[in-house]
Each structure stands twice: as structure tokens, then as C-alpha cells.
């Protein structure tokens, strides 16, 4: 079943089309890896889904409902951005409390297991302005997972994370899939996410070149790795 559908979605910034006529459906219980060169439209694609950016054309449906002014659909979405900036004067603990309050999340329904798993529990008193990039990413990961989302969107989640933490976060993403969630991950580091991916979406110049099961891509190209399969696929996407 599709939990997210894009129908003819396009986004124009002034004269440049960052996204063009994207048609795609994403199922429940799958991990989709969204890849493409820099400036191919990956972040715009994600921002459209999150409502940060208004598509110039087309429509996006989440669980059957077209997204627009009503923010309620975002209750079901967890998002980990590529770069996180938080109010520098707040401590990690204060930010977590504030975001729970803002989301209207009951404490007993808040899943803060990642706080422990990523080693943040001893750092809750630290001010956000003093954190390293990696620690900011960990905080960002905690925020993405704590509402037990049906839809998980991660933009370069492993960038800046140490390998152990990256594995922890990706393990959590796999758990979201196991309980029937939809996971979208953009990534440059293919191997890490590849192990998790069910399907691969490839964007180029704002156009969706293909959206295919990873297994099919590998079988069709006779390779065992996406990095090897990709050039062959791009030469002949059909």
C-alpha cells in the first residue's frame, strides 16, 4: 500500500526547476534510498514532502490525504535534516522538552531510547551552542525518532556521525520499516544505506530517472553493488 504519493510534482525557484514532474509512490514497510548528484533535487524533494517548500505544480498525498495548509499530517512524520541548527542558548534537555511540548507528545508516548543509545543521557545539561556537529546530528536523530513516526525522512543521516552511532541510527530506521513504516533516506555514502534499502530512487536535474527495487537493479546489471550498477543503469535506465 502506498503511504506517500507524488503526482506530477514540480518546484520552480525563479527560473530554475529544482524538481520536475515527479511521479512516485512509496509503500508501507519499505526503505527507499534517494540518491543523485549534488543539486539533483533530493533536498527539494524532501522539503516538498515536509511542507517546507510549496510545489509549483502537482500534488502530494500522505496516507490518502493531500497535503496543504493543514499541518496535522506531520504528526506521523519524523525528520532528520542534513544540517541542524538549534537555539544556541538552550540545553539539549530543554530542547527535547520544548519539542515534545510543541508536538503535543505525551511523555509516556515519547520514545527517547536513542538518547541512551547514542550516549546523550550524560550530556543533557550541555548548551546546544557548544555542541560539535556530530552531537548536533545525534540530537537531530533523537528528535526524528521520538514520536514513533509512520514516515521517517532522513537527509544524509550518517554524515558527521561516527560509524557506531550511524549504525545505531540506521538500525532504528530498519525497526521503523519492520513495524510497517515508510523510510526515505538520502545519502551519498552508498554502502551503509544500501544494506538497508528495498528500493532506490535516482534523481538527476530534478527529474526522477528511476525508482526500482535494489534487487532488480543488481540483477539487471549483473553487479552486486549499487555503486557498480549505477553507471550501467544511467547508460540504459530501461
Amino acid at each position: 500500500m502506498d503511504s506517500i504519493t507524488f503526482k506530477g510534482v514540480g518546484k520552480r525557484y525563479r527560473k530554475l526547476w529544482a524538481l520536475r514532474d515527479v511521479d512516485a509512490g512509496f509503500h508501507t514497510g519499505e526503505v527507499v534510498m534517494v540518491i543523485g548528484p549534488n543539486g539533483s533535487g533530493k533536498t527539494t524533494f524532501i522539503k516538498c514532502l515536509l511542507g517546507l517548500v510549496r510545489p509549483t505544480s502537482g500534488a502530494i498525498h500522505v496516507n490518502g490525504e493531500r497535503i496543504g495548509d493543514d499541518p496535522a499530517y506531520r504528526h506521523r512524520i519524523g525528520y532528520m535534516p542534513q544540517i541542524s541548527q538549534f537555539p544556541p542558548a538552550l540545553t539539549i534537555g530543554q530542547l527535547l522538552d520544548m519539542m515534545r511540548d510543541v508536538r503535543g507528545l505525551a511523555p509516556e508516548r515519547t520514545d527517547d531510547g536513542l538518547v541512551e543509545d547514542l550516549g546523550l543521557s550524560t550530556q543533557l545539561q550541555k548548551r546546544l551552542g557548544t555542541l560539535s556537529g556530530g552531537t548536533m546530528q545525534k540530537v537531530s536523530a533523537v528528535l526524528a525518532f521520538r514520536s514513533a513516526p509512520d514516515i521517517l525522512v532522513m537527509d544524509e543521516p550518517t554524515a558527521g556521525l561516527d560509524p557506531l552511532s550511524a549504525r545505531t541510527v540506521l538500525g532504528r530506521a530498519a525497526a521503523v520499516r519492520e513495524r510497517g513504516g515508510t523510510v526515505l533516506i538520502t545519502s551519498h555514502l552508498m554502502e551503509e544505506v544500501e544494506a538497508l534499502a528495498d528500493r532506490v530512487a535516482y534523481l538527476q536535474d530534478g527529474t526522477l530517472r528511476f525508482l526500482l527495487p535494489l534487487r532488480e537493479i543488481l540483477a539487471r546489471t549483473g553487479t552486486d553493488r549499487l555503486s557498480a550498477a549505477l553507471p550501467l543503469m544511467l547508460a540504459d535506465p530501461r
Partner: protein
Amino acid sequence: MTMGKVLYYTLVDLARNRSVLAFAALLFVVAEGLFLVEGEAIKAVLSLVQVVLALVPLVALVFTVVYTYGAQEFTQLLAVQPIGRSAILGGRMLALGLSFLVALLFGLGLPLTVHAPGGTSLVLLVAAVLLAWVFLALGTLIALVNRDKARGVGTALAAWAGAVLVYDALLMALLFAFSDRPVEPFVLPVAALNPIDLARIAVTIQVDLAAMMGYSGAVYKKLLGSGPGIGAALAFMLLWVAWPTVLAFRVFRSKDL
């Protein structure tokens, strides 16, 4: 409800930021100083009028613009939560408006009440609060329309200079050019084009000092009478709060973050 939460957390952030507190303290020191130096309370109040007309718009405008740009990442963080755009902007503008109000009540209202209680002080305080809100609304709009911070700050300063310097010169030129015709009826709407002038008109009609009223103030008083003249000036200022606010909401609703 979510707007209340955004309001609350923005207030907490503003309290930590201390800039608004510093502005309140500065106003307080200036006001107390003027009352100390000037022998008569009314003279101190009149000096204070000049300070308020120059300082309040500039501080409210620049602070709002800088704060809005500084809050960009936080705005993004909020916008991916199940919170509507109107709640985010409404909460933030209310928080800024409330903190300006408190700053003016303390920095201006307190000295005025102690040293010169009465109608003039009240009108000055109301005009100062409205001025702060006008430039809060304008600053928000300017910061939302200009993606580039340097350009946003530049536009804000230009708007302020326009209201303080250019406008007076234009009004003068206009009056001079049409000096042989009855221009008085046109002065009402033309003066309403400048919120700072409206504040000055309201206060000087109340003080009833012809020397400070200027031409536009005199026309307001002559055509409308004292009470309605002040009322009209303050009502026009409310319009100046309203239109940039409405536009800011419209821009923010469909803005790419």
C-alpha cells in the same frame, strides 16, 4: 494552542537574549536623566518625545529584522512539526510585541507615571507602544520578503530613514509647491503615510504646543479638534500595524523555508 506554545518559547528566548531588557534599561536611564536635568517636568516630557520618536522605531525595526533572520533555523525546525505556519508567525510576532510592550511600560511608563502623571504621558506611552508595533510589523515583513539578510537590514534602514528624513522633506516640498491652493484637507491622508509623524501629531496635540505641532499637527487639530485629532492619528497607526501584519502572514504562508 500551538500558537501559545510558540509564543511562550519565543518569550523565553527573548528573555535570555537580554537585548529587549537592555533597551528598556536604556530608555529608563534616559527618561530618569531628563527628569533630573530639566527643572520642569513638561520640558523633560517634551525632550522625551523626541527621543521616543527617533529611538523606538529604529530599535523595534532593527531588532525585529535581526531576530527574524536569526530565528530562521528555529523556524524550519518548527515548520516540520505539526504546527501551522500562522501559529509560528503569530506566536513569534505576539512574543516580540509583548516584550516591546513590557520594555516600554518599564523604561518609559514607569518614569512618566512617577514624574509627570497625566494625559500627555499617557498619549506618549500609547503612541510609543503603537510605534514599536508598527515597526515590528514592518520589520517582520521586510525580513520575510528579503531572503538575503544584508539586503533585509538595508531595506529596513532605508524605510526608517524614509520615515524620519525623506518624508519631512517631501511634505515640505509639497506644501511649498501648492502653497497658493487650499491644501489642508490633503494633509490628513498625506500625514497618515508616515507612522512616526502620526505619533508626533498625537502627542503634540495633547501637549497643545503650537511650536511643536508643526503644520500637519496643526491641521489635524484644526480640522478634527483635539480629541478626535489624537484619536484619528492613533487609529491611523493601528492601520500601520495591520497592513504589514496581514501581508507578512500572506507571505509566510507560502514561503519556501
